[in-house]
Structure formats: structure tokens, C-alpha cells
């Protein structure tokens, strides 16, 4: 195989995985804050929660558009099979994201148009449904997609199965944890204390869910199983569970201190990173398990090179100004700051 034809898809798979991971981290806490509205009814608290993300949520969601566009440009076969296969979950996710996205603006400006309560609910349920749907999409992708001749041949309801739905639930809990620990970092006094108390049970739930998904996934397919039982693959994967437990220790210790800030959030991100890596190890080198590899799915080298030339310059710049914009709005957010 020609070197370019071999290496370009690998490089792009890593870049695409990185983009999706950045999306999961950024929009994860963002969506999690919406889900936390379920348990937080005080208007002052809700305003602060939204204000911690108001300046950055657009940028967070852009990573998802980037993921879609990369898939379209670099792995068009994956784009053209995964999306039809997950037609309904994607549809529900998009509609949920619409309802929650506009709520940022509408909840304070509603002026009688359905009112703030309506848009708070829309923010909360939109975040919840979008999170669950993302988990279902992930779960169904791991389970495998029925493809013949690069065309989806399964049913639109394939995703209504125990594993994808369980993943939907797990991702929603994970995002809630990200949201809670983000607020431990970015808020003060009352709200921080509430979120710090909520983080511990969420952390426990997250660990239990990680354990179940980790045992369940290899049982889905023997190729997945071999990654975790055969030598030398096991050398790569063995550190993953160990690292999860190490982070758990750090997480619960830091939560016991009143002065804790960033550590719980970083631990939660660490868990996401490890799960994401574990997932990558499982499915590699398939982009549409069980039949389409990253090489089968990729566009011609001309397309990939054209995009790579731009991406290698633009992505570092994008990261730089994204960090700058977070830096501008650094520090804790309190009730007397109004973003609207």
C-alpha cells in the first residue's frame, strides 16, 4: 500500500478523535450544567450557572460542527453510513440542541414569549436529551452498523437496544459530573457547596457505569474481547483501568477539602479521556464497526492533504484563541455579574 494512502487516514483518525474528545470535554460540562437545572431551582443559582458558560458555549458547539465536517471531508463513507443509520437519535439530538442553544438568549429576554420557566425547561430537557442521544449514538456505533456496499441496510430503530440506551444514560451521568465539577471550580459560596456535595455521588455513579460498560463492551464482539486478553495488546490496555482507579482516589480526596477548585473537574476529564482511549483501542482500526476501516472510509489523498495543509496551521491558532477567550473570562462567577 502506498505510504500516503496508509498514513493519511491514520493521522486524520487521530485528529478527528482529538476533535471529538475536545468536543466531549467542552460541550460535556456545558450540557451537564443544563442537566443540573433538574436539581437546582433557585433563579440566582441558575443565572450564575448559565453565566459561567454564556461566553463560550458557541465555541464549544463549533467542535461538533467541525467533527461533522471532518467526517464529511475525510471519511465520507463513514459520514454517509453512520448518519443514516443513526437517523433518529441524530435528529432528536439536533432538535434538543436547538431548544437548549436558543435558551441561553431567550431565558432572559423572553418578555412574555413563553416566559423564562419555559426556556429554563427547554435548556434543561434539551441538554438532557442531547446528552442521552450522544450516548446512544456512541453505543450503537460500538455495537456495529449494518452495512452492505457502503450503504446502510439496517433499520432506523436498530439503536433501541439495551447497550446503546445504557450508554445514553451513562453519558448523561458523565456530563452531569463534568458540569458539577466545572461549577465547583468556577463558582463560590452556596452554589459551590451544593455542587461539591453533588459531585461525590455522581463520581460513584460514574465509576459504576464505567465498570459496567467496560465489562459489557468486550462481550459484544470477540474482536473487542481479544484486545483485552491477548498479548501484546494487553500491555497497551492494562494501564487504563489502573489509571481510572488512581484518578478516583484523587477525586474523592480532593472533594473532602472545602478549598478544592479545579482538581475534581480535571479528574472527571481524566476519566473521560481514559474511557475515550479505551473505546479507541476497542474499535481500532474500524470507523464503522464491524466492517468499514478508516482506510475503506477515507476520501482520496488529494482531499485529505488539502485539508491537512490548512488544519496543521489553523488548528493551533484556533486552540490559541479559544484558550484566550476562556482566559478573558477567567475567575469565579458571582451573582452580581450579568452577562445579559
Amino acid at each position, binding site marked *: 500500500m502506498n505510504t500516503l494512502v496508509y498514513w493519511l487516514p491514520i493521522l486524520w483518525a487521530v485528529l478527528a478523535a482529538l476533535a471529538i474528545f475536545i468536543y466531549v470535554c467542552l460541550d460535556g460540562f456545558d450540557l451537564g450544567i443544563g442537566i443540573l437545572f433538574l436539581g437546582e431551582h433557585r433563579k440566582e443559582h441558575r443565572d450564575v450557572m448559565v453565566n459561567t458558560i*454564556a*461566553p*463560550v458555549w*458557541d*465555541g464549544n458547539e*463549533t467542535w461538533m*460542527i*467541525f467533527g461533522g*465536517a*471532518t*467526517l*464529511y*471531508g*475525510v471519511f*465520507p463513507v463513514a459520514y*454517509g453510513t*453512520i*448518519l*443514516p443509520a443513526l*437517523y*433518529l437519535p*441524530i*435528529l*432528536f439530538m*439536533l*432538535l434538543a440542541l*436547538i*431548544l437548549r*442553544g*436558543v435558551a441561553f*438568549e*431567550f431565558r*432572559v*429576554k*423572553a*418578555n412574555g*414569549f*413563553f416566559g423564562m420557566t419555559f*426556556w429554563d425547561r427547554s435548556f434543561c430537557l434539551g441538554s438532557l436529551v442531547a446528552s442521552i442521544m450522544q450516548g446512544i449514538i456512541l453505543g450503537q456505533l460500538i455495537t456495529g452498523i449494518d452495512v452492505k456496499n457502503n*450503504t446502510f441496510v439496517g433499520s*432506523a430503530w436498530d439503536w433501541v437496544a439495551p447497550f446503546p440506551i445504557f450508554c445514553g444514560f451513562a453519558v448523561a451521568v458523565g456530563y452531569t459530573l463534568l458540569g458539577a465539577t466545572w461549577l465547583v471550580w468556577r463558582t463560590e459560596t452556596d452554589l459551590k457547596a451544593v455542587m461539591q456535595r453533588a459531585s461525590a455521588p455522581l463520581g460513584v455513579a460514574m465509576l459504576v457505569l464505567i465498570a459496567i460498560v467496560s465489562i459489557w463492551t468486550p462481550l459484544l464482539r470477540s474482536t473487542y474481547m481479544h484486545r483485552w486478553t491477548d498479548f501484546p495488546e494487553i500491555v497497551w490496555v492494562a494501564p487504563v483501568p489502573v489509571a481510572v482507579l488512581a484518578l478516583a482516589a484523587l477525586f474523592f480526596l480532593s472533594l473532602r477539602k472545602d478549598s478544592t477548585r479545579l482538581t475534581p473537574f480535571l479528574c472527571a476529564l481524566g476519566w473521560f479521556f481514559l474511557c475515550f482511549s479505551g473505546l479507541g483501542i476497542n474499535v481500532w482500526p474500524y470507523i464503522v464497526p464491524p466492517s468499514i476501516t478508516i482506510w475503506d472510509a477515507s*476520501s*482520496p489523498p*488529494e*482531499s485529505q492533504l*488539502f*485539508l491537512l495543509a*490548512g*488544519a496543521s496551521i*489553523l488548528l493551533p491558532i*484556533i486552540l490559541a*484563541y479559544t484558550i484566550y*477567550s476562556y482566559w*478573558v*473570562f477567567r475567575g469565579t462567577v458571582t451573582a*452580581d*455579574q*450579568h*452577562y*445579559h
Partner: protein
Amino acid sequence: MPDLSALFLARLQFAFTVGFHIVFPAFSIGLAAFLAVLEGLWLKTDKPVYLDLFKYWLRVFSVVFAMGVVSGLVMSYEFGTNWSQFSQKAGPVLGPMLAYEVMTAFFLEAGFLGVMMFGLNRVGKRLHFAATSMVSIGTLISMSWILASNSWMQTPQGYKIDAATGRFLPADWLAIIFNPSFPYRLVHMALAAFLCVAFIVGGVGAWHLLKAKRQKRQPTEAVKVMFSMAMWMAAIVAPLQILAGDAHGLNTLKYQPAKIAAMEGDWESESRAPELLFGIPDMENEVTRYKVGIPLIGSLILTHSLDGKVPGLKDFPKDQRAPMYVVFYTFRVMVALGSLMALIGVFSLFLRWKGSFYTNPILLRGALLMTPAGFIALLCGWVTTEVGRQPYTIYGLLRTVDSVSPVVTLPNMETSMIAFVIVYFVVFTAGIGILLHDFAQEPSTNEAELERDQPHRAAGITQISHHPAE
């Protein structure tokens, strides 16, 4: 062969979602440029009226931008869910362009939007102006990429077709991006976006001028400035737009003559052709009934000569004809509104010279009536060019019927269409309601003061200070 009614619903869904979407980016493109100009003027002259106007329109921008983002997110996935065959075949060409749009434009807009909206006192005036400019530049870059993609679907070049898979492979990226219709479409769309916003701003200005007149008081400085700026734009850009539209039409005649025939309602190719003002196209019997036309002008407009030959739809086989009964009308609505906009622009110049610019009731009422004219013209133009491309998605190469997904079945399409209609109805009704509510408020003149008194509440530049009760 996919289910034809499902295919129709898939097309309807695309038209519906893109139609809702396109309004907001166009609004953002024009408004971001307007905001950058306002802030630039404020920095240069230090007149508080520009800051007042900046803050007033920034509130509008935040709502418009949010609706653009969420409706655009749908588009970037709808290609895959509903049009997977198209995506797989054209993905190697169009996918990288979309990805470039995200990398060069979407991130830029989203990255600086936060600073633009909430960061004035955190970063200082100059950096804030830089952020506003970045957002504005981002909207322009975004427009360029998406129009390059769209134009390639209209006038494809620089590709080769892979025999084994039927995929379009890029051969020459410069030829793909700078395809023959791209420059014309880009200019036409950019001017359209500016006109949309000019007439929104002008309409809001006219409303407040009329209100002041009714209440027998002097209008505020801010209202006069915004009305004046809007009418300058109308006077300059609307005539330019007519020239740009004419050039775009000639380009279409060269590359997509069947589209022109459908737009003009012509069945027979002829020289010394009339320009139809009205008619009822009948696709079945290949005739346009009840024609009202101006002799010779059709040839004159399309060929710039009185006896030039213009195409007729009968020159093209039946299975290559765009639905005339759609594009014939949308084209006429667009042209009529464009002419009215130019008329208002010229009329406003006359009134400036006469000295009754801020008071003339015909201009003020006319501008108020024309508030949505830019958007209606834009949507009509969009329908003309997109429906005019039928029955192809990639003109002459890939048919719409071969572009859809295997999951485009009637139950799926019905479910998703209903869901889209409900959600869009709720979201966009609320959004437009909020915008109208904002428009009904006059730009306040004390916001600059308010901020100087309370520097530590800086982040709240979009605070709703015009509702002291809240």
C-alpha cells in the same frame, strides 16, 4: 429508485431547514459588518451615539447569531442523514470545503463572540474592536466558503469521476473553489446580506421617527443616525445589486441556460424576445399562458442586444427541466423587490437634497413597509437558483433522485418533518417575537453613562437597561 413522495419530503425538509437557516447568517453577515463600522466610528469620533447604537444592535446580534448557529448545526448533519449518496459521492470535494469553513470562519466567529458580547471592560476598547472585527471577518469568510461549495454544485469543474465508485475526486482545488459562477454568486449574496440589514435598520429607524412625529417630539440622535446610515446603504448598494444581478444572470445564461429559460418563462428559443412581467407557466402543455411582456427587453437584458437569441425550455429534454412554475415567480418577486429597494434609495437621496429626509411620510412609511424586503428577496433568489438547478444536485452530473439516503422513507421523513416544523415554529416564533420587542425599544442614550458609573459590572454590556422595572 427511492420512494418519490419520501424524496419530495426530503427536498421539502431541506428547503424548510435551509430556508430558515439562511436568513440568520445573512442577517449576521450584514449586522456584524454594521457593528464593526459603528464601533470603529465610536473609537474614531468618541461620540456616544455610536456606542449607543452599537449596544442596541449587539442585543439583536446575540439573538440572531444563536439562531444561526443552531439552525446551521442541523444543516451540517442533514447532508449525511437525508442525502448520504450525495455526501459519499461529493464528500471528497465538498467536505474539505465545509471543514475549511469551520476552521477559518466558525471558530473565529464563536471564539471572539464571547469577547464581543461580554468583554468590553475586560479587554479594553481596542482589543474589543479587534474582536468585533474578527467576528465580522469570520462571517464574510464563512459566506465565501459556503458559496464556493454551492457554486461548485451549480457549475462544477476541477474534478474527475472515479469509475469504480462514481465518486467526484478533486483534481484542481483552485478550479473547484474559483468555479465559474462563484465570483458572481459571492458578490450578489454579500450585497444581498448588506441590503437585508440596511432595510431592517432603516425600518426600525423609520418606526421610531414616525413614533416621534406622532408624539410631536424631536427624534433622538441615535434614531436619526441609524436611519441615515441605512438609507445611505440602500442608495449605494441597491443599484449596485442590480448591476451584480445582471452580471450573475449573464453568467447563468452561459453555464445553465435551462435555468434561465425556466426563470424567464420562455419555451421557444428566440431572438428579439420579450421580457415577461406576468404569465402562468404550464409545464404539462409546454406553454406559458396569459403572458404580459415588454417586447425586445428579454433579449436586451440577457444578451445586451435587442436581437440576441435567448434559450427556451423546449431546447432541453423533459427530464432536464427545472420546475418553471416555481422559479418564474420567485425570480419576479426578487427583481421587483430589488427595484423597489433601489427606488427607495434614490428617493432618499432626493429628500436629503430637499431637506425633508427625516420627516417625509412617504419615505418613512415606505422604509417601514420594506423592513423585511431584503429577506424576502433573498429567499426568493435562493429558491430561484436552487430550484433552478433541478433535477440535479450537482448540475448536469448527479441527479437529486440519486442523491438521497436509503433511510429516506415515508415514515422517517414524516416523523422528522413534523418534529422540525414544531421545534422551528416554537423557536423562531419566540426569536422573532423577541427581536420585534427589542426593535420596539428606542436605542437608549444613557447606556454609556451607566457603564462608566459601574465599571466592575462591565460584563453586563448587554444588560437589559431599557427595562428599569426588571
